[in-house]
């Protein structure tokens, strides 16, 4: 099947459909090698009595980008808030050009965003850290929304744990340390935003850009648990120690190692620590955040 006429035609059309638009969101007249796109379109698309080959191809070219813009903007309103709408448009186009969808679902469109922002600080200057933190929170939100929920550990199971035990965290629980209060900022942004609707139609006729200025969230070191409860995503601030403990468990360290990591540079008196740990585990158990490691790494 590979390199059949069908495959070659589809490659050719996909390359044209996914080629970036002009600033005015029209199809480009020249491709990267300065060849005429009208000639290229005419080579495989029939014109009709109303539209040239170029114009017919342009309908698909614009729909492709408008659909991706719509999905990306819906998933990352906080990033737009942080960098401002003008910079966001540039950033979004550059990211989507570098990372077109490799998944059957647009849900995964932003999966490479945080790494890409770290590698490309020019798109978020002069505040790349707040932009990265916000993007990380928004991607964590996507994951918390529909990641798997596994059977949580029971109180009896937790009572049998010792320092060598390994515990996994629920796939829907994501952890984030950030130097900005991005949680407050995102909650405020989400309160004022509305989702778009297109699902089974293959047409996206318009891309609306609303102008907003960049606004940096307040500078504050935060530790967050992003999780789902009763089908709603919540952000919960954690103490530094609780965050480090959960993070170490997520990394696969034993319970003893995780506790050691959590309190390595802690000012909490040693005598207070057992009660703090017990209280934290009690809360996490009630939340259902703890579960057994996957069968292949079963060490409980």
């Amino acid at each position, binding site marked *: 099947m*590979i390199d059949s*006429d069908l495959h070659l035609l589809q490659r050719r059309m996909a390359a044209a459909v996914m080629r970036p638009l002009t600033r005015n969101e029209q199809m480009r007249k020249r491709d990267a090698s300065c060849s005429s796109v009208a000639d290229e379109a005419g080579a495989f698309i029939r014109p009709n009595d109303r539209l040239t080959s170029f114009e017919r191809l342009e309908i698909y070219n614009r729909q492709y980008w408008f659909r991706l813009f719509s999905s990306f903007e819906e998933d990352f309103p906080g990033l737009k808030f942080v960098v401002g709408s003008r910079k966001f448009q540039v950033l979004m186009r550059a990211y989507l050009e570098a990372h077109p969808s490799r998944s059957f*679902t647009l849900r995964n469109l932003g999966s490479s965003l945080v790494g890409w922002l770290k590698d490309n600080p020019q798109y978020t200057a002069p505040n790349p850290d707040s932009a990265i933190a916000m993007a990380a929170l928004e991607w964590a939100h996507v994951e918390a929304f529909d990641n798997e929920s596994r059977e949580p550990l029971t109180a009896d199971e937790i009572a049998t744990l010792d320092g060598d035990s390994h515990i996994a965290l629920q796939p829907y629980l994501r952890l984030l340390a950030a130097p900005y209060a991005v949680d407050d900022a995102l909650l405020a942004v989400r309160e004022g935003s509305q989702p778009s609707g297109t699902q089974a*139609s293959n047409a996206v006729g318009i891309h609306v850009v609303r102008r907003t200025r960049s606004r940096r969230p307040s500078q504050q070191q935060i530790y967050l648990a992003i999780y789902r409860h009763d089908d709603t995503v919540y952000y919960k601030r954690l103490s530094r120690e609780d965050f480090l403990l959960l993070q170490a468990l997520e990394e696969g360290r034993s319970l003893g190692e995780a506790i050691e990591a959590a309190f390595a540079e802690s000012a909490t008196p040693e005598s207070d620590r057992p009660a703090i740990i017990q209280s934290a585990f009690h809360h996490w158990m009630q939340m259902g955040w703890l579960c057994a490691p996957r069968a292949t790494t079963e060490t409980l």
Partner: protein
Amino acid sequence: MPANRFNGFTEYGVGIGLRVPHYRHILEKKPIVDWFEIISENYMIDGGRPLSVLDSILEQYRVVQHGVSMYFGSAEPLSREHLRRLKALVRRTGTSWLSDHLCWGSVDGTYTHDLLPMPYTVEAARNTAEKIRQAQDFLEVPIAVENVSSYAEFHVSEMTEWEFLNEVVERADCGILLDVNNIYVSAQNHNFEPRQYVEAIPADRVAQIHIAGHSKFEKYILDTHDHPVLDPVWGLYARAIERCGPTATLLEWDDSIPSFEEVHAEALKANRYLQGYERTAPLAVTA
């Protein structure tokens, strides 16, 4: 004819697409709806609210799955991961049949998330039919392919769209999800007579019919699913029902979605034609 092997020998009436803005209304008011169509990809996930809502809906209603990214027409092989997730959803919903589009949309693992038109060639028909067969074998549920609305045609096409559709479904031995709005949109964009399309489809393979609204632009029509069904589309629907019998019918409304009642009322207009058929259909004669 309506109950056939391509829709699991079911006789569904008029349904609507299950959409997020209507979740609360449906769960709280439990309106009488014959069936809901879901976009499979929205529920091919590991957990969370979409699956919880789906499970609640399944307690009360019949659900049929409709996909948007299987891309039977893409030259590359079917995605195993996609099929695995889809089969898990098929088991969850108990869908009597499953539909996706007669189109392509991915190349070399990159997805356009669009329903791109096929070149109407024998090679493309052969490739598409083979993939439908593979999916049908794996999923163990009848598959119906939907004709898409399109805005471009290829120089290499060797046949009309309806000839291509017939070629594919015969080779794959699968059903048809006949979208009469898409026929109308493509007919306007490509200057063909939409009735000719409806007359040419094999009526005994039609598992389901889609109706929807569209938007007119200066030089072409876009399949936007954001309006009530227009009269010419109802005209095509009427003829399709005359040919196919009272077939499971679904209204798609995906953008600028109005209230549940408004969407449902628009869908139920289809009953004028379905009930009209039943009044005029000849009685069966038994020995």
